């Protein structure tokens, strides 16, 4: 059996890990993520170079790893990364487009115009050499995500670190969760359970 063992929800003004919720009085995602970075003493200078999409995924992943320390027991290639969204890297795409329309194409912004860069950021931080995939879909598709997780766990991966990450100004929608096999604790991986947690 596969179980949802940790989950994290980030909106423009709140962050929760396994239902333990912290609210902020601003809806500025960037400053709220920075606040968590400081409060949790994450101490990872590369954070400041990341785009907003990668920052949201990174902060969420660090909070999950603090909550679920057993994830550290897997071998370096046993945790697969499976992230998805509907907006790809649009937040950074528009910044890069602005930079070249202003006659100054920014190489550092261009690098973040691929949604899978955040997979690299998480892999680098944790030295995870496992399987990686980034999916784009019109909406949060629990059935598709569940199927992709099952594929990964049937093959070489023992656990999946998953996320749905949109960070545009009008739509901050971040949901991260971990799936592990043969656990005695956790929520069974079903479409309904994924949708329930996503809508919480």
């Amino acid at each position: 059996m596969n179980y949802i063992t940790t989950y994290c929800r980030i909106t423009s003004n709140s962050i929760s890990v396994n239902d333990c919720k912290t609210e902020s009085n601003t809806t500025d995602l960037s400053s709220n993520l920075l606040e968590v970075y400081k409060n949790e003493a994450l101490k990872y200078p590369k954070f400041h170079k990341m785009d907003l999409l990668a920052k949201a995924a990174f902060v969420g992943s660090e909070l999950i790893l603090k909550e679920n320390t057993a994830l550290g027991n897997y071998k370096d290639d046993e945790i697969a990364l499976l992230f998805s969204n509907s907006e790809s890297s649009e937040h950074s795409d528009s910044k890069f487009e602005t930079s070249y329309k202003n006659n100054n194409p920014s190489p550092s912004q261009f690098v973040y115009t691929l949604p899978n860069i955040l997979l690299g950021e998480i892999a680098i931080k944790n030295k995870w050499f496992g399987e990686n995939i980034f999916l784009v879909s019109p909406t949060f598709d629990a059935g598709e995500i569940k199927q992709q997780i099952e594929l990964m766990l049937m093959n070489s991966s023992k656990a999946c670190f998953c996320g749905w990450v949109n960070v545009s100004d009008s739509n901050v929608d971040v949901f991260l969760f971990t799936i592990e096999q043969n656990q005695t604790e956790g929520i069974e991986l079903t479409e309904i359970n994924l949708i329930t947690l996503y809508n919480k």
Partner: protein
Amino acid sequence: MTVYIGAEHIISPLGNSAEENFTNACEGKSGIRLVKNGNFKQDSDLYLAKFDEGVNLDAIVNECFNSLHIDKSVLTSNKTKIIFSSTKGYLSDGIEHALVDVINKFILSEQLSNTPILISSACISGVVAIAKAGELIKANFYDNVIVIGIDFLSDFVVYGFEALYALSKEVCKPFDKDRIGINLGEACSAVVLSKNEPIFNEPPLEFVSGSSSNDANHISGPSRTGEGLYRSIQKTLSSGNISKSDIGYISAHGTATKYNDTMEAIAFNRHGLENVKLNSLKGYFGHTLGAAGVVEVSMAMQQLRHQKVLQSLGYANSGDDENLNIITTTEPHQFNAFLKTASGFGGGNASIVIKKT
């Protein structure tokens, strides 16, 4: 279970079918051409593999899908899944929804039973998509999977790679000592995987195995040790029960940037694959990003079918300490299986093995 792969199709500046692309490549032709003042400041020439003006990009995906050489009932079957691979989708229509519109437009224009998925894992997208297609069939989730890779040229992408100083001012030279960067390209390409051999109009090949692995090293620079590519090849060979001596040809990623090609040479040498005949197809198609994996797998399948391997266009002299057996003349070659690899931004690496049935 045997997973068949076939019906490969390529629409590129080099040709409008896999056969036409292969025939033209055999004649030493390339889709890359000079675009006057194509750079950001419009003061310098660029080499791009660009479609002629007037080609309807929106129609290409449907054309590719509807001209696949398979039993047409597969296209609408509820046992069929479609996987797109793309990095930027319909960016020329604007940034918003550029990628997800690949799915949205396709749903509206075709009669499909299942919603397609889209893999966007930079330059490894196409190879990952084919690996996932094979896994979906082996797991009995679907009987057939159609993988469609698309990416089109745009100012956005050209100026971005120029800002990274990654564009070559001449036709690219993968693995050559004088290589100085990539040429960008555009293409649409498809392959079909199925557990049912009779759906194919022409005899298919066999998908053996595939995998991906991250370098965990740098978001835009290749690993110095080729660790991710090494591990992906390892996983693909072992899960497919394939020995290195079974691999008769390698279709490398070979972008023609200095560090990428060196990284690949290191990874292949660590596996003892340095004597296997190898090419990069970037000299024929440029780097078609999210489509590249599907284009190059289709071309590798053509090479396997015709028992003929293509010259690694642009290569003359080795520039790396680690040797590779790079193909310098298009020539007949008897082989039963090939390895296709890809590496890209985000530290991703992927590989698959395909063999004769």
